[in-house]
């Protein structure tokens, strides 16, 4: 209490140092891990007995193996940078100490999630990140944002239609969508415990191959349901775009770099269960591919810079699920894309935050343009991340996305079909990301009178620079061009297993070339439409029929509304009016009336006439005597 006010000012630094310390410890632990040979790289830290109930014994055990190490490094490393950025970004917020404590709680939960050695400890972290997401999305619960109609005017004059978006409903939506997924996690845990009698990873994975096919499929699909909630895959992805109502560092940390990757991590962690069920793997790949395409399509039609990035995240997460759903040939690729995506998407979000910071918290892409000269550092770092996400050769996204696509192609069968979707999505990704940078940083200045865009303070640009460099070099550092025996793959092999065969160099080259050409096409298309001085608002109005569905997010929210609000409301009304009022109330009232009727007829017996009672007594006596006399 003595230092309350002073500590308040230091809250950001304390939080940042805590996470940075965690990062240093993780690096040290990684070096220790690397000193062991491949087989001994799975270490389990036995904790205390946490829960003991009948056959259920859960210990608070932690696991340190290459997969945990990779995730722990990403989580702490990216989080440190984002914490640092937040010090600048949240400088003027009144509740910044609350913000930083929740941000730290999030990192702690995420670390519990990735370091867990059994399902229950993992679930603890899983729920923890869900809670922190809810808290942080709703952090600005009293701030209302106006969103301009996608077909509205540019800057001058009044917008012809505005919609109000604010944080509490978004936070609730995130929480509910996550809860639906969590039910899948819980049911999967019940099934796992019922069939294997344990929740410990070593035991469960040891018995995974002996599971009946149906059981394995059920467990895997339930786990994947949890993934679709946490990692924003179809059909539960709808919460992620709305979650952009939270502060931008939260979007970067939780909704791009770390929390949403928990689902990908879960599939990789429980890969033995998924390998026991070919059906589940196919479902993972198909859902991933569908979500990748859907997210990329919707991202094209968004005007809110954070929404573009949110749908981009959904789309990129689809790639990761394609990777981890493929089996041993794709695990490393999926995890690799997770790593590179964490870098470039964190940069993109923080860059978007920087743009907002310099533009009076505006998020509407129609109000930017020509920010290149006003915000040079933000511009150049964003361009680096842009190059990485669309897959410019030698950047991070190029390596990781190509590895996913190559694994997909090599998988054969349905993989070839999905490969086409993946390449198409790569083209769309290039299109919407180029649209984003062209409309934000290039072209004429469209910001309103009286606004003076300015570069963010060094505290915010430093993380941008670090992440931009990582986005450029991470792919090169962690992989080789062919994807054959990349460093990351070798590192993860003890946990995830080695792929059976490698594709030849020539095939890999042509696959990469196809994806790169597709990306170049997308970027060129975006340049033709948005890079030159084309009146794209006029085009948008002329082709409103085609634009509307994209801007309206392909009406998925409306479908949800129809099913939940309209149909759900009708069901509730049916239950309330018909079933409850007529059925249940009718039964209760019916019983009461029955008793009342019986009583009304019964009271006539109580005549008050003593002589009639006497007659009754006589009759009874006669009956008893008759019974006694004539009893056989």
């Amino acid at each position: 209490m003595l230092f309350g006010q002073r500590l308040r000012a230091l809250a950001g630094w304390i939080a940042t140092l805590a996470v940075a310390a965690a990062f240093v410890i993780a690096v040290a632990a990684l070096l220790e891990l690397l000193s062991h040979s491949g087989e001994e790289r799975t270490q389990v830290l036995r904790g205390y007995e946490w829960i003991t109930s009948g056959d259920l014994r859960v210990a608070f055990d932690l696991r340190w193996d290459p997969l945990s190490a990779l995730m722990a490094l990403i989580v702490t490393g990216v989080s440190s940078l984002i914490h640092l950025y937040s010090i600048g970004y949240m400088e003027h917020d009144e509740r910044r100490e609350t913000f930083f404590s929740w941000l730290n709680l999030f990192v702690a939960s995420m670390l519990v999630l990735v370091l867990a050695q059994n399902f229950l400890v993992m679930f603890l972290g899983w729920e923890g990140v869900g809670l922190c997401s809810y808290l942080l999305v709703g952090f600005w619960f009293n701030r209302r944002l106006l969103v301009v109609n996608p077909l509205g005017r540019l800057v001058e004059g009044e917008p012809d239609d505005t919609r109000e978006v604010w944080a509490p409903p978004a936070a609730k939506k995130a929480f509910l969508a996550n809860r639906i997924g969590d039910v899948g996690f819980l049911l999967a845990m019940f099934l796992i415990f019922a069939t294997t009698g344990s929740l410990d990873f070593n035991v469960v994975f040891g018995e995974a191959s002996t599971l009946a096919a149906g059981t394995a499929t059920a467990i895997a699909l339930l786990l994947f349901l949890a993934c679709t909630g946490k990692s924003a895959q179809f059909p539960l992805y709808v919460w992620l775009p709305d979650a952009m109502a939270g502060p931008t560092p939260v979007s970067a940390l939780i909704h791009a770099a770390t929390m949403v990757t928990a689902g990908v991590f879960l599939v990789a962690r429980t890969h033995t269960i998924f390998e026991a069920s070919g059906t589940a793997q196919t479902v993972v790949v198909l859902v991933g591919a569908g979500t990748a395409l859907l997210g990329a399509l919707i991202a094209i039609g968004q005007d809110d810079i954070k929404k573009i990035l949110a749908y981009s995240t959904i789309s990129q997460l689809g790639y990761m699920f394609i990777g981890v759903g493929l089996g041993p040939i794709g695990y490393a690729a999926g995890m690799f894309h997770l790593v590179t995506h964490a870098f470039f998407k964190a940069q993109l979000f923080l860059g978007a935050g920087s743009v907002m910071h310099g533009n009076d918290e505006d998020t509407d892409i129609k109000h930017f343009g020509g920010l290149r000269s006003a915000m040079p550092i933000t511009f150049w770092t964003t361009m680096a991340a842009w190059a990485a996400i669309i897959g410019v050769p030698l950047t991070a996204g190029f390596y990781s996305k190509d590895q996913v696509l190559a694994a997909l192609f090599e998988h054969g069968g349905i993989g070839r079909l999905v490969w086409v979707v993946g390449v198409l999505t790569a083209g769309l990704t290039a299109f919407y990301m180029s649209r984003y940078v062209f409309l934000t940083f290039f072209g004429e200045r469209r910001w309103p009178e009286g606004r003076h865009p300015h570069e963010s303070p060094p505290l915010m640009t430093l993380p941008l620079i670090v992440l931009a460099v990582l986005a450029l070099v991470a792919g090169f550092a962690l992989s080789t061009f062919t994807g054959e025996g990349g460093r990351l793959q070798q590192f993860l092999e003890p946990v995830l297993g080695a792929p059976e065969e490698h594709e030849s160099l020539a095939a890999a080259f042509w696959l990469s070339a196809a994806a790169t050409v597709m990306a170049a096409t997308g970027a060129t298309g975006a340049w033709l439409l948005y890079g030159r001085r084309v009146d794209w608002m006029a085009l948008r109005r002329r082709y409103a029929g085609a634009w509307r569905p994209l801007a309206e997010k392909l009406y998925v929210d409306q479908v949800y509304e129809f099913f939940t609000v309209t149909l759900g409301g009708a069901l509730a009304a049916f239950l309330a009016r018909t079933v409850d009022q007529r059925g249940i109330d009718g039964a209760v009232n019916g019983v009461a009336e029955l008793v009342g009727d019986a009583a009304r007829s019964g009271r006539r017996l109580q005549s008050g006439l003593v002589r009639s009672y006497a007659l009754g007594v006589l009759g009874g006596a006669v009956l008893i005597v008759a019974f006694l006399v004539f009893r056989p």
Partner: protein
Amino acid sequence: MRVGPGAYLLLSAILFAIGVAGVLIRRNAIVVFMCIELMLNAVNLSFITFAKTNGSLDGQVLAFFVMVVAAAEVVVGLGILVAIFRKRSSTSVDDVNLLKG
């Protein structure tokens, strides 16, 4: 002439039947009481008869019990009757129907 137990039992039955009829038919509470006494004593008569026939004293003992209880019952019953008469100036049992449902 020797009178057999059958005659005693017949008399007992007749007395009992008269009592029952009186209880059912008469309205005057005092007469109803008298009829109840008649029934009780009819039963007493059959007790005595059976006691004599079987050479056992059980029936006679029971008869004494019945008399004692009947005396007590009459005391209470007449007390109630007097109270009702004071209140309503009537001894008709049909007038007393406060417990009608």
